[in-house]
């Protein structure tokens, strides 16, 4: 069968996206990412004044590992994501049911297909933007190309490791904890007893400055061995292993009695709890954006040392915490509600409440960061700033993408509209936070247009025909 399955899966993924919002809009998405990377790269000379090149390269490697981890977390949900994305459609991913092809082969092809897609949609455009930018700034193009190569290796390591961890998790959570503990101990031993620096453990970064065949071999081992082991020990849920669950919808719903949408909220939490990865998925999906936030914070602190770090962190946390909404909508299409007396706006309203409840995670993070930075005196303006921008970006997400942010943000027009409405606010909030944190006490004013947009969103999505694949 060779690469036939892979080729068909790639064709299918292309048709799936292009049928949803047109070939041009989907094809423009990587171009937009490339342009974004290009514009961001133009600021590199300024960042170079506050960070050494080595620090920049190291940070970029961390980001790409986290990016791989974030993308690879689909391994945590595995078949559930396939189910969610493909619904009841008879796609190639389900061929093992009717054709003589094993689920392992199908999953391998699915994995390769997703890697190819993410590389084409995200990684290559970012690299392209970075390399083109070197023509306009004083950075050597060859060095940039080499960094890009090692960044791809970091991305693949992140992907491979999380795939392996998810396989361990599928077998036993104890096994996963034991492995993580052993890994941590091994790293600590390497650092403390063998004096191997953390930069050497970050092999793709290390190979950039000190290339060696041994390091390249170790990188290949890190990429291929966990992936191969995961495929060998891939665990697939067969129906005979189905579990019985205690009836808990109504009990949980009672806890959310303060809302008229209590049973929808209860359902959201049961979806998160019972799907693979549990509530951990939310924390997982947070790693990458929070990592990015820390990097921005680091840059800002170096750039303007007088800045109140907690203020900047709150602004970025507000933006990234909107991604919780994506996770809440990931397990719920509108199709199962279409034959019930339910409006799209009702589901959206219930998701907003679920979002506010889960946002307690973000609140805790904000409190911890304020304590660790010893900036509790700025906590109130930071909190108001976080709440406002988080709710504003949530309302924009809902207006532009409704219940389908993970799908519709691949429509370049929708993504551009979102960026255009959120980034000016992000810019204004950042500048205001730097100038005088107390200005942010007035930030809740932005909640008025956010509520207005939400109201318009309800009307918009109630008229809209739900996506069907």
């Amino acid at each position: 069968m060779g690469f036939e399955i892979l080729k068909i899966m790639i064709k299918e993924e292309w048709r799936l996206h292009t049928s949803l919002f047109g070939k041009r809009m989907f094809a423009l998405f990587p171009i937009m990412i490339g342009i974004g990377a290009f514009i961001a790269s133009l600021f590199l000379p300024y960042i170079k004044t506050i960070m050494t090149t080595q620090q920049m390269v190291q940070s970029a490697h961390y980001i790409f590992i986290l990016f791989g981890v974030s993308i690879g977390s689909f391994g945590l949900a595995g078949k559930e994501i396939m189910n969610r994305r493909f619904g009841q459609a008879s796609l190639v991913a389900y061929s093992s049911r009717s054709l003589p092809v094993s689920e392992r082969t199908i999953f391998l092809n699915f994995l390769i297909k997703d890697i190819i897609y993410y590389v084409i949609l995200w990684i290559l455009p970012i690299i392209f933007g970075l390399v083109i930018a070197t023509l306009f700034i004083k950075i050597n193009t060859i060095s940039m190309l080499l960094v890009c190569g090692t960044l791809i290796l970091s991305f693949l390591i992140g992907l491979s490791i999380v795939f392996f961890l998810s396989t361990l998790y599928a077998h036993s959570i104890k096994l996963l904890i034991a492995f993580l503990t052993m890994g941590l101990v091994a790293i600590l031993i390497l650092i403390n007893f063998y004096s191997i620096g953390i930069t050497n453990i970050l092999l793709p970064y290390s190979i950039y400055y000190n290339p060696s065949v041994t390091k390249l071999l170790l990188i290949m081992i890190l990429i291929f061995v966990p992936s191969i082991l995961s495929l060998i020990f891939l665990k697939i849920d067969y129906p005979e292993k189905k579990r019985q669950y205690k009836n808990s919808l109504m009990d949980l719903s009672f806890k959310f009695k303060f809302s008229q949408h209590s049973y929808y909220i209860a359902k959201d939490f049961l979806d998160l709890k019972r799907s693979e990865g549990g509530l951990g998925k939310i924390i997982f999906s947070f790693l990458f954006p929070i990592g990015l936030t820390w990097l921005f914070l680091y840059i800002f602190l170096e750039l303007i040392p007088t800045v109140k770090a907690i203020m900047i962190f709150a602004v970025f946390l507000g933006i990234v915490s909107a991604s919780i909404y994506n996770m809440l909508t990931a397990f719920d299409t509108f199709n199962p509600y279409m034959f019930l007396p339910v409006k799209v706006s009702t589901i959206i309203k219930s998701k907003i409440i679920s979002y506010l409840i889960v946002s307690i995670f973000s609140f805790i993070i904000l409190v911890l960061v304020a304590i660790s930075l010893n900036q509790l005196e700025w906590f109130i303006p930071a909190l108001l700033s976080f709440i406002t921008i988080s709710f504003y970006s949530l309302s924009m997400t809902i207006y532009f993408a409704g219940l389908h942010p993970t799908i519709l943000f691949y429509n370049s027009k929708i993504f551009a509209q979102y960026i255009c409405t959120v980034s000016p606010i992000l810019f204004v909030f950042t500048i205001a936070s730097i100038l005088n944190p107390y200005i942010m006490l007035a930030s809740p004013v932005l909640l008025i247009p956010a509520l207005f947009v939400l109201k318009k969103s309800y009307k918009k999505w109630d008229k809209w025909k739900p996506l069907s694949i």
Partner: protein
Amino acid sequence: MSVIKINNLTKEFGELTAVDNVTLSIEKGQLFGLLGPNGSGKTTMIKMLTGQLKPTNGTAKILDIDVLDDPIKVRTKVGIIPEQETPPSFLTAQEYLEFVGSIRKLSNIKKLSEKWFKMLDFEDQKNALCKDLSRGTRQKLMVAQAFLHEPQIAFIDEPLINLDPIIQRTLKDFLLDYIKKGNTVFFSTHVLEIAEEICTQIGIIDKGKLLHKGSITELKNKRQHLEDFFLKLVKEG
């Protein structure tokens, strides 16, 4: 008294006309079977009548409620068993019925759902997640959710698909009893034997056009077999 009134209903998907200018009315207490080959427009018709799909042209009234004006009110009053949709993955069968019951604001959900678990013989599956249920059990669950609130009209798309012969018999008997109580059923199928056995009225649709509407008794009186009649009509187009 007509409980379903359809006037010049049309649905176009680009150049394809899925339902073509259909006018039809169905009286209270009828078990109406919409028969047609695959892709003839049966599912599109049900989706338009229940406000899941907006017609390109024409109107439809269910229990005197205009579907275009108030689809939610229509879906509050009727029960729907869709052809393909499945219940949400991570609720148990029992929880799903409780969920639907909460949406429909029913007060004695537990008792009502127990009745359906018993009647369709899947009590042992009520604590399993919907995603783990067999297709047949999911279909039973979809039947239960549609009738949980004891609606006056039920729209059913391919009702007996995936069900074993014992449950098929149970459901057929239930539907016959249901219309005796003055309720109405609108169902689509391409299985002619089922239509011949339980329908009081039939409509034959092909390529979106309603080719025939009449009672089963009429056909029986003419000593005409539904299968022969159907094949002749569809072939003549």
